[in-house]
């Protein structure tokens, strides 16, 4: 599922490890999320939205969902 996590992370000047720590996940999870290889659960998606201060639909592209 395509998303804007990489762009939002760059805007905040955070490393993947920092985002992982803020979300309470492993860095490899952030890697897979950014690559669009892994679609997160609803709770994690909302957590990501809260972290970047954006609604979930502004971060994840529903059209690219498989």
């Amino acid at each position, binding site marked *: 599922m395509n998303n804007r996590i990489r762009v939002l992370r760059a805007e905040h000047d955070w490393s993947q490890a920092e985002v992982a720590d803020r979300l*309470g996940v492993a860095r490899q*999870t952030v890697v897979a999320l950014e690559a669009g290889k892994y679609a997160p659960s609803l709770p994690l998606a909302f957590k990501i939205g809260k972290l970047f201060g954006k609604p979930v639909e502004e971060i994840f592209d529903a059209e690219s969902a498989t």
Partner: protein
Amino acid sequence: MKSSNPTAVANRNYLVEMALCMGAYVAVLVPAIWLLDRGGLTGPLKFAVAAAPVVPVVFVFIALLRYFGRTDEFERRMLLESLGLAGVITALLAATYGFLENAGLPHLSAWFTWAAFMGAWLIGRLIVSRYYGT
């Protein structure tokens, strides 16, 4: 400073628990082999001593289950998918060799399945990691 990230904590705890289990495994296996080699054991006691090393192995899987419950959702998915792949690969290997035994290959120990599963789990993990690009 130690990370308070729950996934990092899960990794640390898993490593500590696995190390303890491995230590317990050696601590049980060595005397069990010694007692069996020495001879003199008979009946249920002999079987109990022979099977004793499986107890710490059970704790290995308990440690794995605890890790499964504590780690993040993506690692949980990779773990499950790699275990699923390992199951399929092992079943195919075991069935294939079973048929080859009909053609005259020697009968193998049950350890073959254990070793095959562990090897297949590693291969499964590599396939899953590659798929997700991690």
